[in-house]
Structure formats: C-alpha cells, structure tokens
C-alpha cells in the first residue's frame, strides 16, 4: 500500500439537538493512501457526509467530536487551531466538492469573481504580504476552467452561474477544488444530480485530475456502481459505523457483511428481467433510536442472539478486508470466536 496521507482513528461524533443526542459517527477508523481513491457508500443518514465534513472541519455548531484523531500528513487536524486550519489546510491541502452544484455557487457573482477569489485568498495565505489583486489571477482561473473541459473558457469565465448547465457548474466547482496544491479531495455525491453521460465525464475528470496531481480522493456516494468503476478501496457505512472495508474488487465481488451483500442484491442490474429484487426490510433507524448490539440486526436475515446484545467489532476477515459482523457468512460460524 502507498504511503498513508490521511489516518482517521476512532472518530466519534455526536449531534446534540436539545434533548436528542445522536451519534452520527461511531469509532470510525481508516487509512487513505497517497493517490488513492476511497469510496464511502451507504444509505442516506448513515453518516457519510458527516465524515467528510469532520475531515475538512466544517461541522455545524451542534456537532461535537467526542474522541478520535484525524491525522493528515502527520498533523492531527482536530488539535489544529482554527486559524491554522484556514491558512494551511481547508481549501488548500484539503478541498471539497459539495452535494449540489446548483447551490454551491453564488448566483450574484460571475464565475470569474468566484474563481479568482479563491486563488487570491490562497495566494495571501501562501505568500504573506503578496500585493497581487484578484484580477491578476484571471489567467490562472481560465487555465483551470480549461483543464476541466469547459469549451471557450475565455468567454465563459465572465458568465454567471445561471448561464451554465448542471454539468458545467460541477466542472467549475471541480476546477475550484482541484489544483496542484491539493492533496486530498472530498467529493460528496459529486455527480448525483447529473445525467449518465455527464456523470461519466465528471467521474473520468476527477480520476484523471487526481492521477495527474497525485491527489487522494474520498468519494462519498450511495451509488455502488460508480464506486466499482472509479475507486481503489471501498468503505460501507451504516448508522454511523463502518460495516465493511477493503479493496473494491474484494468488497463488491465477495462481500462478507450481510448488509453489503443485501445492498448489492437490491441493484436491478444484477437480476434478470422479471426476477424479484431483494430488498432489505425496514428502514435505517433514526440515529437517536439505534437498537442495541449490531445496529443492523432488526433488518438482518442472519441475526442471532449475540447480534442483539453486542456490537460486532471490525475484524480483518481476509487480507486487507475488514467486516463488522459476528457471522462469517460463508462458513456459517462466528468469525468472532474463531479469532
């Protein structure tokens, strides 16, 4: 495995909403290597986005990180003062592509203003005392637009966001997020609102730019099929916990956790026409009403007594493949006891 860039260990995050306390992330640990693409998948409400936001330090005020470490290039981001975070990390070394390209751009400023703004601020942090003005970065901004494949960037840069289509807005955002200085890109549902041909273009763009700049990517999505095409490793999350993690081929080709297996079976692409799809009964429980033991047990077809009592730990079930389940599906016995 390549040198680690990001090491998250035991990250635990609570949302305090008055009387309700929700555990959004529960002891999340993983390592992301340099230049790797890691996919984070799960149903809505499983904590995928909270994970992204805690890494870049943009959590809402009701969030409280209980314990854990987020070590990025040897620095614990959680201990870093806010000013340092702004200066060194956020928007510089770590950037994020948000959920919704329609809302991530300010409608009352031109693309030029918004792009040069970022470049200008980055420059101020990198070279204190720099007297460069926003206008001096126009050339660079146009270069970035060009690298994301926008036709006629010289003219388009003075347009407003409404003059761009969804796919083009997403390209602008990627252009803002990816630069030579970025070493970690957090892509949160970057292609959800886009059409398939545009989605394929954007995903190709992210992986190509990542390969070119040696950027690592944390790719958050609910679309397992996309991950199968672009990610090196996959992490499956459920109700704030990591359920399964490993190389893409081994997680999707040979899933160990019943939840991952069930998710794959509910995709229509794998079933012939007319055959019923498998669906997981019930719903993801609200985070303040998690069941005892394994949070998946009420929906799991293999649930046993032990699942109702204890939380299964994440165990390395085969080489670099972890799964958090008492049941070893294939051998029909407890991995827990075996190890």
């Amino acid at each position, binding site marked *: 495995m390549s040198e680690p860039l990001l090491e998250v260990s035991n990250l635990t995050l609570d949302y305090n909403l008055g009387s309700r306390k929700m555990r959004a992330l529960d002891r999340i640990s993983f390592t992301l290597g340099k230049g790797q693409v890691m996919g984070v998948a799960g*149903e*809505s409400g499983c904590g995928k986005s909270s994970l992204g936001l805690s890494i870049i330090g943009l959590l809402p005020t009701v969030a409280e990180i209980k314990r854990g470490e987020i070590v990025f290039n040897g620095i614990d981001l959680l201990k870093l003062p806010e000013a340092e975070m702004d200066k060194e990390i956020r928007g510089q070394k770590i950037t994020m592509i948000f959920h919704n390209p329609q809302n991530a751009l300010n409608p009352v400023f031109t693309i030029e203003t918004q792009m040069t703004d970022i470049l200008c601020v980055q420059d101020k942090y990198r070279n204190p005392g720099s007297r460069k003005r926003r206008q001096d970065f126009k050339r660079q901004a146009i270069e970035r637009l060009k690298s994301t494949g926008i*036709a006629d960037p010289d003219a388009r840069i003075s347009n407003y966001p409404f003059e761009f*289509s969804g*796919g*083009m807005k997403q390209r602008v955002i990627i252009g803002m997020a990816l630069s030579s200085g970025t070493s970690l890109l957090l892509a949160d549902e970057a292609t959800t609102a886009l*059409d*398939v*041909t*545009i*989605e*394929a*273009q954007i*995903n*190709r763009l992210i992986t190509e730019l990542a390969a070119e700049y040696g950027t690592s990517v944390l790719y958050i999505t*609910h*679309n*397992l*099929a*996309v991950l*199968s*095409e672009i990610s090196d490793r996959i992490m499956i999350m459920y109700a704030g916990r990591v359920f399964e993690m490993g190389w*893409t*081929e*081994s997680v*999707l*080709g*040979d899933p160990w956790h019943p939840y991952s297996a*069930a*998710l*794959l079976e*509910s*995709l*229509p*692409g*794998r*079933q012939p*026409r*007319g055959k*019923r*799809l*498998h*669906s*997981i009964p019930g*719903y*993801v429980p609200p985070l303040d009403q998690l069941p005892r033991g394994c949070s998946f047990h009420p929906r799991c077809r293999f649930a046993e007594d032990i699942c109702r009592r204890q939380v299964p730990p994440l165990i390395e079930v085969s080489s670099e493949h972890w799964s958090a389940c008492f049941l070893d599906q294939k051998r029909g016995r407890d991995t827990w006891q075996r190890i």
Partner: protein
Amino acid sequence: MAEDLIRIRNLKTHFYQGKGLLSRVFGQGLKIVHAVDGVSLSIKKGSTFGLVGESGCGKSTLGKTIFRLVEPLEGEIIFEGRDVVKMNQKDLREFRQKAQIIFQDHFGCLNPRMTAGQIVAEPLIMCRGKQVSQRSIEHEVVRLLRAVNLDPDAAVKFPNEFSGGQARRIGVARAIALNPIFIMADEPTSGLDISTAATILNLMQDLQDKMNITYLWVSHNLTQVKYMSDDMAVMYLGKVVEMGRTSEVFNKMAHPYTQALIPAVPRVSSKQRKQTILLKGEIPSPINPPSGCYFRTRCPQVFKRCEREEPPLLDLGGGHFCACHLYDGH
C-alpha cells in the same frame, strides 16, 4: 402477439417563450421550444414500455402530453381505438380514470394538508362519490394501503410523517385506486435509497401481474429500464432515436447515441473497468436544435449528410428502429 393499448403518431408538443407582453413590446422574437418533436410509438397491452433519455430530452413532456396535461401541437394518441387529442372534457375524464400517473416528486404530489387516507380516497370520491357510501370508501382505502404494503394506520397520518419510500407508495396507492389499465411512472424511484427503490420495483411488478396494468416507465436510469421494461425507446432532443425490444436495444445498440449512453451507465462488476466512448459536450438547446440530425453536434461518427438531412426512423428488422444515416443503405 398482444394488441396495442396506445398508439402515438407523429406527436409534437412545442412550448413558446416570449409570448408575453414584455417581450412583444421590446421586440424579442417568439422562441419555440421543440419539447416533443414528431414521436411515434406504440405500447402493447400488459407490457412495460421504457422511455429513456437525458434530462431535457422531452420524455416527461411526452408522458404529460399523452394525458393531455400539456396540449399537443399535432399528432394523434390512439388509446383503445379512440384519439385522446380529439376527446372532449367528458371523454377525457373517463380516459383519465383508466390512465393514471405516478409523479416524479413523491412529496410534491401529495397535499401536505390531507392525510394519506384522504389522498387515496380522493379519486374514489371524485369518480364514484355519489354512488358509494363513506363506509365502503374507507374500506377501499384500507385495501389499497394494504396492496402497497402500507399499514392501514397510515391512513390518518400526514405526508410529512412518511419516509420517501412510503410517500411513493401512497402515490402508487392513489394511482391504482380506480383500477387503471395504464400507468405512467415518471422516475418512480428517483431520490430513493437502493434498497427502498428495490421494494418499489417489486411492488410495481406485483401490481402489474395482479391487475394486468400497462406501464409507461419514464426514467433516466437505464439499468432499471433494462430490468423492468419489455420494449423501450431512447429519446434525444424531443425525438426517438432508437426503439425496439429492450433486449435487442441493449444487445445491438444501433444508434451512436445509444452506443455512448448505455456503456456510460456505471455497473457493479469487480472484473474489469471498461473503456467507454465519452460523449463530448451536452445536449443542445431545444430552442435552436441543430440542422439535420439533432445528435450530430456530439456524434463521434458524424458525416456530411447528417448536417443536411434529418434521418428518418429506419426499420432494422424485428421491430428494431433507429434514426441514423449510418443504417441507410444508399
């Protein structure tokens, strides 16, 4: 072979921009949006017809035009031997009992001030209100909620108390309330999680088996259309570019657009990462569509003729149609 339930001939729906007073005063010309531009297709009784295409290609407008929620410019829609375009209000009302829609926005289509029970009962009251008692309507609502796997207690809840998948089910229950023979499902699983989407797909198939409903399945999710539909059409800028048996379209992929669209769909396969033809650019505006073939601006196999002539829908044999000059013998 089953007979056709719906036959559409050369249907056109155009929208007008700049019709208002302001643009007339300031002298801006009338702009015509060619939303549906000469579509012909037929849907067999009891089958599922998949309609795919990227956003803005006119697939939802086509669906709405069939119900005359949008008035067509020209063309005919033959439903059970009668032309929907020529129907008067009374006939239209009757037609709309036999044909129903499941809308795309699953919360938006439910009135937030009505309970699920009232929502499902509304079509019953509208159409049979005078002949049936309150009691039998309540009875029917319970039966419908059960049919879509919802708890009968749900009848007293308001839409905001439901999850996305449950809201969808209420939409389905309302659509099947009058025992329709035709349902248009517009992106029936958009915005749902994988597992929830699977339950909706299963439910829709069960209903089709039980009630022999014909579906028009409008979606941009190709995997789903492949799984659900018997026949399908691929639309691009208001026109059908390829049409045929779903298996045929997926296996043969005749039109260059289909050839780019289908492989672009990500698939879970641990084996190999495929190299696909990526289309350049995006759909042109339907206000000023390109001359000749509408797809020529993005087509990797474009040649001279495409600019001049609009390709007709050619029969490739076995009910497989494709609108591309590449398949024209001369």
